[in-house]
């Protein structure tokens, strides 16, 4: 169920240049059942900045009624969010949208997880759940440069992890696709979140594979009412369009015109 709650900042820390990890606690965390969902955050109780910011859930701790986000403090709203301190309240709406399905992948099989930049966070909860299910995750994570790389250790603990930086300052140089080409495709499903060109490249690379892609769009309401976040669909579905906020953000590969 979607809730709105003033959640408490349990902890906020900078984990890379302008990249923050924020953990919030509240009953809303109890509603979080799926990796890949997101929350819509009000960063100020003033009229400015006005709109909520959509941020993915990167890990969930139901027992503690806590969840964690990882975001880049870049524009006005996320910079304000990064100034929140332990004990402060944050107005959260969520959980929103439909996340990554792990139903079709079985224990013993392999799953490929491909993330780009601030698209990496939602893959963390996903990977934990795959591991719990006995699925073997392979992580390929792309970043611009060394100083914005995060969670290498956390992902490595869950499975084989390749870090790629555009400038080669850390891990492999180039794009995630450069690494993907070197991997054998013995995985049964792939999951990805990141820039649209990356998602498009993956669909081209693995036309036969079952895949799930998490998309981004500018949002208004975040719950499906305002038609701000629509995407064009392909023949693969009979819907004329989909809304990223309520039908997505995760879609089966091939459904969206990327």
């Amino acid at each position, binding site marked *: 169920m979607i809730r709105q709650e003033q959640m408490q900042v349990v902890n906020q820390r900078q984990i890379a240049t302008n990249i923050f990890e924020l953990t919030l606690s509240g009953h809303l965390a109890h509603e979080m059942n799926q990796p890949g969902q997101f929350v819509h955050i009000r960063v100020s109780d003033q*009229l400015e900045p*006005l709109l909520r910011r959509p941020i993915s859930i990167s890990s969930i701790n139901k027992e503690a009624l806590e969840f964690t986000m990882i975001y880049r403090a870049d524009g006005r709203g996320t910079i304000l969010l990064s100034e929140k301190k332990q004990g402060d309240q944050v107005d959260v709406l969520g959980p929103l949208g439909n996340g990554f399905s792990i139903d079709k992948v079985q224990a013993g099989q392999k799953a490929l997880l491909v993330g780009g930049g601030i698209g990496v966070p939602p893959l963390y909860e996903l990977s934990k759940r795959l591991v719990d299910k006995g699925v073997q995750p392979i992580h390929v994570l792309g970043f611009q440069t060394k100083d914005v790389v995060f969670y290498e250790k956390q992902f490595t603990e869950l499975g084989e992890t390749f870090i790629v930086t555009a400038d080669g300052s850390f891990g492999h140089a180039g794009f995630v696709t450069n690494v993907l080409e070197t991997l054998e495709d013995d995985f049964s499903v792939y999951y990805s979140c990141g820039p649209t060109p990356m998602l498009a490249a993956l669909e081209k690379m693995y036309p036969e594979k079952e895949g799930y892609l998490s998309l981004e769009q500018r949002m208004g309401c975040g*719950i499906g009412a305002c038609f701000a976040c629509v995407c064009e669909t392909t023949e693969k579905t009979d819907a004329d369009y989909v809304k990223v906020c309520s039908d997505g953000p995760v879609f089966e590969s091939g459904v969206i015109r990327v």
Partner: protein
Amino acid sequence: MNRLAVELPGLSLKNPIMPASGCFGFGKEYAQLYDLSKLGAIMIKATTPETRLGNPTPRVAETPAGMLNAIGLQNPGLTKVMENELPWLEQYDVPIIANVAGYITEDYVAVAEAISKAPNVHALELNISCPNVKQGGITFGTDPKVAEELTRAVKAVSSVPVYVKLSPNVTNVNDIGKAVEAGGADGITMINTLLGMRLDTKTGRPVIANVTGGLSGPAIKPVALRMVYDVAKQVSIPIIGMGGIATIDDVIDFLSAGASAVAVGTANFVDPFVCPTLIDELPNKLDELGFNTVSELVGRSHRL
């Protein structure tokens, strides 16, 4: 006796607060959050004869204390709205105001005639003020004569009272208000969005794919309030006021300026519970100001 109740042509409102068209879809999404029967009414998303897929994305951008949108009147079209959306809304005890749009007069007439027969549609809102479509929309809302004729044509076929939604992007909003009254409008809703744009400072490109969009939110409240105040002086038909309403004080200001009821748009995105919250806050605010009923408050600024 319900001190919040308001009687308007076609509309017996429990309270004067309703979500504005395009900010509430057809109600399904907000129904997950609260009981829609609590609302005074619901202004549903613009409906056109045919299915419309709207404008390319990005369709929204944030601005100081406001936002721009260029949705482009995306909607499932008359048939689907009549078959799926309106019947679904019948489970709630809330009057529906159907927002009607089109490219040409015949479109408005066709949609109005059909949708006004739906049992839970108690009034129409003619959208002659959408700034985000190339044809129709605002072009009908900037010329008094055209607005008057369109109103008359729709009145001739509508089974329910007709409200006309005015655009703020005009030199003289009073003339348009008087024209639609002359055309037989039962009421006026105002204001629609102000035409604006935002650029991506890095690239110099418009943030919104449509280049320009409609400005809404608290930023436009002073313009909306001024227009409601002026038009209320000029016409004798009731006004449903909107434009930047986010707090209970905003509601009071629009009622004081002469609106008989108010609609809340952008604020739903900031606080999805804003409508029920404002409805709950209204009685105490009336007490605080020393008014028994909403109706007593309406237009008080003109009586001082």
